[in-house]
C-alpha cells in the first residue's frame, strides 16, 4: 500500500519559492491500478517522482508498505527501488551501450540475482521480443524499445510499477498495443500500477483516476 500524507514540493526561484505540490494526501491499495491525470505543469511527474522515491519532498511523507521513504537517504531509497519498484518511462530510458537482453538483465544484476539471464530471456519472450535479444536500442523501433522497457520493469518482479506517459512517444496503434501488454502483465503479476498520462483513454482503463490541478488534488474517484 502507498500512502502520501500532506506531501509538498517547493523549489527556490528567482522571485521566491514556487510551490509545485501543495499538500497532497492519498492512498493506493496493493494491486490497484491508478492514473494520475492533469494538464502540463500541474505537478503529475513531480508527484510520481516523490511516490516512487526518486526525489525528496519539501514536507509531508510517503509510506510504502512499512517503509517511510522520507526516513531514507538516496542510497536507501535506491535499494528500496531496486527491491520494490519498477519503471516505464515516456522516453524508454534504455542504456544504449547494452543489448535488449542486457538492458532487461540490468536490474536483476543490480540485485545480485544469479539467474538474471534466464529471467530476462523469459520476460523478453513474454513481450514477444525473443528474436531481438541481441539488438541494441538504436536497432529497435519505438514500440519495441518500450516493450524492452516493460520487460525490464517486470523482470525484477516489483510490487509497484510506475509509468510516466508510457505511450507519449508512440503512435496511437503502437501505444494501444503497449497498453494492452502493460495491463496484461500487470494482471498476471499482481503488481500495483501507478501511471501518469494525458491520454484519457488510457486513464479510463485504470481502476481509479486522480486529477491534479496546479499542485492540488481536485478530484479522485
Amino acid at each position, binding site marked *: 500500500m502507498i500512502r502520501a500524507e500532506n506531501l509538498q514540493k517547493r523549489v527556490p526561484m528567482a522571485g521566491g519559492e514556487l510551490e509545485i505540490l501543495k499538500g497532497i494526501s492519498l492512498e493506493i491499495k496493493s494491486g490497484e491500478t491508478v492514473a494520475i491525470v492533469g494538464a502540463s505543469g500541474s505537478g503529475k511527474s513531480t508527484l510520481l517522482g516523490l511516490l516512487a522515491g526518486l526525489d525528496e519532498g519539501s514536507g509531508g511523507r510517503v509510506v510504502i508498505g512499512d517503509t517511510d521513504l522520507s526516513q531514507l537517504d538516496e542510497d536507501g531509497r535506491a535499494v528500496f527501488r531496486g527491491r520494490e519498484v519498477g519503471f516505464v518511462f515516456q522516453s524508454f530510458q*534504455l542504456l544504449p551501450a547494452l543489448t535488449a537482453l542486457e538492458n532487461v538483465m540490468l536490474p536483476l*544484476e543490480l540485485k545480485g540475482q544469479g539467474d538474471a539471464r534466464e529471467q530476462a530471456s523469459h520476460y523478453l519472450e513474454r513481450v514477444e521480443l525473443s528474436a531481438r535479444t541481441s539488438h541494441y536500442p538504436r536497432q529497435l523501433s519505438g514500440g519495441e524499445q518500450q516493450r524492452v522497457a516493460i520487460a525490464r520493469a517486470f523482470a525484477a518482479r516489483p510490487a509497484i510499477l510506475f509509468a510516466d506517459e508510457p505511450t507519449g512517444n508512440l503512435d496511437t496503434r503502437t501505444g494501444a498495443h503497449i497498453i494492452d501488454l502493460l495491463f496484461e502483465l500487470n494482471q498476471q503479476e499482481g503488481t500495483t500500477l501507478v501511471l501518469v498520462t494525458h491520454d484519457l483513454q488510457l486513464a479510463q482503463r485504470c481502476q481509479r483516476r486522480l486529477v491534479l490541478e496546479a499542485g492540488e488534488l481536485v478530484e479522485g474517484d
Partner: protein
Amino acid sequence: MSVTATRMLARDWRGGELGVLVMALILAVGVVSGISAFTTRLQNALEMESHRFLAADAVVRSGREMPAQWLQEAGTAGLDVATTLTFPSMVYAGEDAMQLASIKAVSDAYPLRGELKFSAEPFAAPSVVASGPGRGEVWLDSRLFPLLDVAVGELVQVGEAQLTVRGAVRGEPDQAAGMFGYGPRLLMHYDDIAATRVIQPGSRVEFRQLYAGDSELVAEFMAQLKPRLAPGQRLLDVSDGQPGISRALERAERFLLLAGSLGVVLAGVAIALAARRFSERHNDYVAVMKSLGATSSAINYLYGKSLLLLGALATAAGCLLGWAIQALFFTLFAEQLPVQPGPSGAQPYLVGSATAMVCLLSFAWPPLRRLGQASPLRVLRKDIPLLTRKSAWDYLFGLVAVSLLMLWYSGDWRLTMALLAGLLVTVGLGFVLAMTLLKGGRLVGMSAGSIWRLALAGLQRRGAANALQVVIFAMAIMLLLVLVLVRTSLVDEWQTQLPADAPNHFMINIGPGEVQSVDQLLREENIRSEALYPMIRGRVMAVNGVDLPSPEEAEMDGPRQRETNFTWSDTLPTGNELVAGEWWQPDTDAAVVSLEEEFAQRMGIEVGDTLSMLVGARPLEATVSSLRSLDWQSMRPNFFMVFPPQVLASYPATFMTSFHLEPDNKVFLNHFIREYPTVTVIEMDLVIDQIRGIIEQVSAAIELVLAVILATGALVLIAGVQASVDERLHESSILRALGARRRLILGGLLIEFAALGLFAGLLATAAAELSVAILQTWAMDMQYAPSPWLWPLGLGAGMVLIAGLGVFSCRRVVSHPPVAVLREL
C-alpha cells in the same frame, strides 16, 4: 556488473567517447616512459664512453706508490685490474740525441676499457691492439722517431735501462689525462720501471690503479676502498673522464625532463577534460541505473572498475609507445653513438605506469566520482542540473598532483616553480581577462541577424564556459610555446658554443725563437688561429704568507699547493669576463695577477690576497687584482693565472695557441711536425666531432620528443573544443531548423572560435614569456632574451588552431539534417 563495465567501455569506445581520454593517457605514459628510457640508456652509453676515457671503470691515482694489496683484493672480488705510472724523463738515443718525453709504464692488462692503437712504423696506419709493449720494449710517439733519430728495432735509454723500439703508439684511451704534459709519449712495460732507477722519493710521478668489471662489483669495491684512501690518493670516476660533453648533455637532459613534465601537464588537462565530458554524457545512464536500484557505491564501483580497466589498457599501450620512441631513436642513430647503449631496465616503464595512475586518480576520477551522486530524477526531468561541475577542490587537487609529478619527474623544484608560475598566471589573468572581454556588453539572445552578431552573441551567452575554455587553450598553447622557445635557444646556444670554425687543434711547447716563424707559417697557410700565449709552468705555494698543504696532505679538491700554467697579457684574453677587481693598465710593472674565478674559489683565494709562487726554483710574489670567468669549452687557450708581461718577462717561457684546421688540410700537420719537431700538436678535432655528433643526436631526440608533446597539446585543444561542442551543435541545429544558411552558421562558429583562440593566444604568449624568463635565468643557467616573433606565432597559432578545430568538430551541424543532430544530443 563486470559484463556491464566492459560492455559499457566497448560501446563508449565505438562511440568515440573514450578516444581523447585513452589517447591522452597513452601519450602521457608514452612520453614519460620514452623520455625516461631514452635518458637512462643515453646516460649508460655516455658512462661507458667516460669509462673509455679512463681506460677503466674506476681509477685511483696518487703521487706515491699505492698498496699492491688493493689490486689483489680487487682480483679476489672478481675485478680486472691494471697499473700505470706516468712521469717526465729524458730519453737518450744513439750518440747524442736526447728529448724530454712523457713516459708511461703500463701493466699487461692495460687498457681495461677503450682502445690502444699501435703502428709498426711511425705515421703509418694504426691498428687496435689488446695490450701495450712487452718487457724490454717501448713504443714511441711518431714524433719521437725524428727527434731521437731512431728507427724501429734500435735501442733507446730511459734512466739506466736500455729498451728496444718496437713501433709507434698512436692512441691511448686515457690520453687526455695530462695532455699538457711533458712532450711526446714513450710507452713501456710496468715491470721495466725498476731497471730504469728513475723513480726516487719526491719524483714528479703519477701512479694509477685501474679497476673494471661488473658495475655493482666495482661500486661495492670502491665504496670499501674509499675510506682507506690516504690524503693525496684520489678516486677518479666517470665525471672526470670527459667534462666537455657533460654540460651540453646535462642541459639536454633537463630539456627532456621539462618536455616530459609538460607532456604530463598537457595530458593531465586533456584527461580531465575528456573525463568531465564523459561523465556529463553518462549522467543519464546513471540516473536510469539508480532508478533501477543502483546505489552510489555500486555506481562508483562500476565506473572505478571501468577506469582501472581503461587505465591498464592505456598504460600497456603507452609503455609500448614509450619503448617505440626510444627504440626508434636508437635505431636511427645507433651508428653515430660511440658505444652501444645498454638496456634501460623496467624502471622507466614503472615511472610511466605510476604517472598513468596519478593522472587517472587526480584528473579522471574526480568528475567520474561525482556520477555516483547524480540524481535519479533525471529519468523524469531533463532539467535537473548535472552534478559534475568541477569544484575548487578538484582544481587544487589536480594542481598539487601536477606539481608533485613535475617535481618527482624533473627532480628540480626551480623548473617546477617556473612552470607553475606560468600556469597560475595563465589561469588567474585568464579568468579576469576572459570574463571582462566576454561579458563586456549586455547579454543578448541568439542574434541571428548577421554572422558577426551571431558570433558575438554566442561568445557572451556562454561567458563562463568560454572563459574556462580560453584558459585551457591558453595553458596548452603556453606550454607548447615554452617548449619551442627553450628548444630554440638551446640549439642556438650549442651552435654558437661550437661554431663550425671553432679551434680544433692546440699547439704547445713553441720555443720563444719559433714564435714568429710559426705565426707566419699559420698566416701563409690561411689557418685561423688564436693569439700566441706564453706558457710558464709554476706552482702556488702560499697565500698571504701561509703555506698551502702539499698535494699529498691536502683534502680532495681543497686548497693545496698547485702546479699550473701561467701566462701574461696586457689585455683581458678573448672570451674572458672580469667578475671582480680591475684589469691592469698596459705596461704596468706592478706585481699583480688575475685568477680564474672557480680556481680562486677552490683555493680559497680572494682579490687582494698575496700569493707566493715558485717558477722552477725561482720565487715569485704577486697580489690578486682581479677574478675572471671563462668558457672552458671554447677550445681557446685558457689560463687559471694571468700576469702583466713585465712580471713574467724574465722567466723562461714556451708559447701556445689553438687553431682551426679543415679536415682535408690535415696533411699540414705532418709537414709542420717535421719542421718543428719540438712543438706538440694536440688534435682535438676528433673529440669536437664527437661532441658535435652527440649534440646533433640529442637535438634530434629533442625534436622527436617535441613532436610527441605537440601531439599531446593538440589533444588538449581537441578535448577543449569537444567540451563545448554539444551545446553549440544544439543551438546551431535549432538555427538550421529555423532556416539559417550554412554560411551563417559556419561563419558564426568560425568567428566565435577564432576569437577564443585569439584571447587564448594572447594570454599564452604573455605567460610563456614569463615562464621562459624564469626558466632560463633560474633553472637552465642561460641568458634570457625576449622573442618578438613569439607574439605573432602565439596569437596566429591560437586563432588558426582553435578556429580550425572548432569548425571541424561542429561540421556535423551543416552536413547532417538538424533533426538527426538534435536526436543524437
